[in-house]
């Protein structure tokens, strides 16, 4: 029975609610941030961010280096917890529940809000072990067959299955950079998260691998809510439906990607998009 549930999770796309539109009702908001401030010691890195992330949409966070977009991304699944001297205030909700509620469990949050990092970071284990690690620790499967299935589904979804199906026992660190990143995405998917956070997932990759990942993101948005930080505006334009522009720790504006890129509301956005700074 559990297996069926899992299969449902993996395949059933929540069709009724897609596509999200700019005028989405509140129920469509998957995560929302209100007045999020982050301090590193005495330094305020984010000055009160308000943003809604809607179900099954790709939100791109853009902005010059050091503008706080990665910091904000890490707030969404409390990855900043592990950084010394980092304090987060304000609220981040997932399905209306505060992520920072002390009663809520950080492990659970991270299982529901997965993350893909800037540099591919496969564990020094086999490809199979990399993908099955998440389901294993969360106890998502009951036996080997189920586990195999999850691994295969995840790798398929990450578009890696055809390339690695014959060498699942080979070390994940032996793959090429692009494959490693897709492995990391597969690893994240295998936990069946609801939201996937991607922190410049293509910055360490060559153009061909980048194209692969971008196609993949396009695929994934049917099942998952995705927040992607990127440096590359073309990428933001290609993969996202909505875009948020960060500057010096402020969220300058949020809007449909198309609007942001063609008709930004703020001078700073305009300057960044046209390459005046950044």
């Amino acid at each position: 029975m559990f297996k069926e549930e899992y299969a449902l999770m993996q395949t059933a796309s929540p069709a009724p609610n897609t596509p999200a539109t700019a005028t989405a009702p509140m129920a469509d908001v998957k995560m929302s941030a209100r007045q999020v401030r982050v301090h590193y010691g005495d330094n305020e890195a984010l000055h009160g961010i308000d943003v809604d992330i809607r179900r099954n949409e790709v939100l791109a966070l853009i902005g010059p280096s050091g503008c706080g977009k990665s910091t904000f991304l890490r707030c969404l699944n409390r990855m900043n917890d592990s950084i010394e001297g980092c304090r987060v205030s304000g609220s981040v909700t997932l399905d209306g529940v505060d992520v920072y509620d002390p009663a809520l469990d950080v492990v659970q949050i991270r299982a529901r809000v997965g993350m893909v990092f800037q540099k591919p970071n496969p564990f020094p284990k086999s490809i199979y072990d990399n993908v099955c690690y998440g389901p294993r620790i969360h106890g998502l499967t009951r036996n080997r067959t189920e586990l195999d299935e999850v691994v295969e589904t995840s790798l398929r979804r990450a578009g890696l299955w055809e390339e690695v199906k014959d060498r699942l026992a080979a070390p994940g660190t032996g793959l090429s950079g692009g494959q490693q990143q897709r492995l990391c995405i597969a690893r994240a998917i295998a936990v069946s998260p609801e939201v996937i956070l991607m922190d410049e997932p293509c910055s360490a990759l060559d153009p061909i691998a980048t194209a692969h990942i971008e196609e993949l993101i396009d695929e994934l948005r049917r099942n998952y809510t995705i927040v992607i930080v990127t440096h590359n505006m073309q990428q933001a334009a290609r993969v996202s439906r909505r875009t948020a522009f960060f500057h010096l720790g402020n969220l300058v504006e949020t809007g449909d990607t198309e609007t942001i890129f063609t008709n930004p509301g703020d001078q700073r956005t305009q300057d960044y998009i046209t390459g005046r700074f950044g």
Partner: protein
Amino acid sequence: MTDSLQITGAGTSLHTTPAAQRRLRRRYAAERRFKALGLFAVLFGLAMLAFLLTTIVSQGYRAFIQTHVSLEVYLDPEVIDPRGTADPRDLARADYQSLAENALYGLFPAVEASAERRALRGMLSQGAGLELRRRIQNDPELVGTTLELQLLVSGSVDQLNKGVFDLESGRRLPVSDEQIGWFRELEAQDRISAPFNWGLFTRADSREPELAGLAGALQGSLYLMIVTFVLSFPLGIGAAIYLEEFAPKNRLTDLIEVNINNLAAVPSIVFGLLGLAVFIQVFGLPRSAPLVGGMVLALMTLPTIIIATRASLKAVPPSIREAALGIGASRIQTIFHHVLPLAMPGILTGAIIGLAQALGETAPLLMVGMNAFVTSVGDSMTSPATALPTQVYMWADSPQRGFVERTSAAIMVLLGFLIVMNALAVFLRRRFERRW
């Protein structure tokens, strides 16, 4: 049930089912166990350290005071200088101990049987006579006078005074019941005192615990450190500079590198065997000499200094070298004028830590015979001597009860030096550490 798991429903997902919650509780229990295990390990280490130090200190503090008895000693000319010539050789040879013993007999006129008298005079240390002789030799005019003196009591009476013996246990003690009685009487007459034990630092080794001191060992260790430093510091720096700055990268230098790392991990006793076979057997250098011990320790310290120096040299950024070379300095000038001074704090730190290790090293010293029993302070680098750690070893081996506290005290002195040296190293590192 499937319905409740619809991911589209707000707040529900695979990760929020009751089953998932149960799993989560189990995982957190495992987490707590693991963390507790780690904490236990840390606390175990700390507790053991505390246990060790308390053991040592609780034994050793006693050796820093020494029991004395106050006696009015008549400096009988008949005994000291029977011929009345004040010849220094006569003064040196006289039976001073009997003077002190007579003074003690005077306090207990009732004690007459020879066995009892033997027990009574057994309460005095041989150090009493030595003390009297020192007084007379300093000032021969004192002969014929009566002096009130603080004289050393024997080791077992000293232990009795310090309350080491469990008088109720019924076990055989090194002091007899009579002696305990006499001691109580002396105590009642307020003749017993226990001042700070300067003798611990001014006297050399002895078979009698109350007379045994660390002076010889301290001097031996000082000599060892001097030899070790003088040899290993320049040699180590020279080797490190060559390897780091000049050596071509080839198999020979690779070999040297591997070799140095290995030398740092060779058991210290093997260095002792080297010293015995090469320095003593082949070169014919004297046994038990600080010179030889220092040479062995220098060889042991060398890898530590080389490794520390290389690390410090590496930490100096290439830009400094390039700047100096760019204005026409030779490589040697660059290194000695710019790189080496910048690396010096790190090198000194490494050298001090290496020396601290050498100071506590015992096994190689045993091999070259630096556990000599020397009752006077040695006078040169080549005369037989002992060192602090070997003194600890020898005293730990001594049967008398009094040596337990002496050993602990020696350890406290040794640890004191180590703490000072390490603190100095930390200070140097903190004070001069530079981040590039």
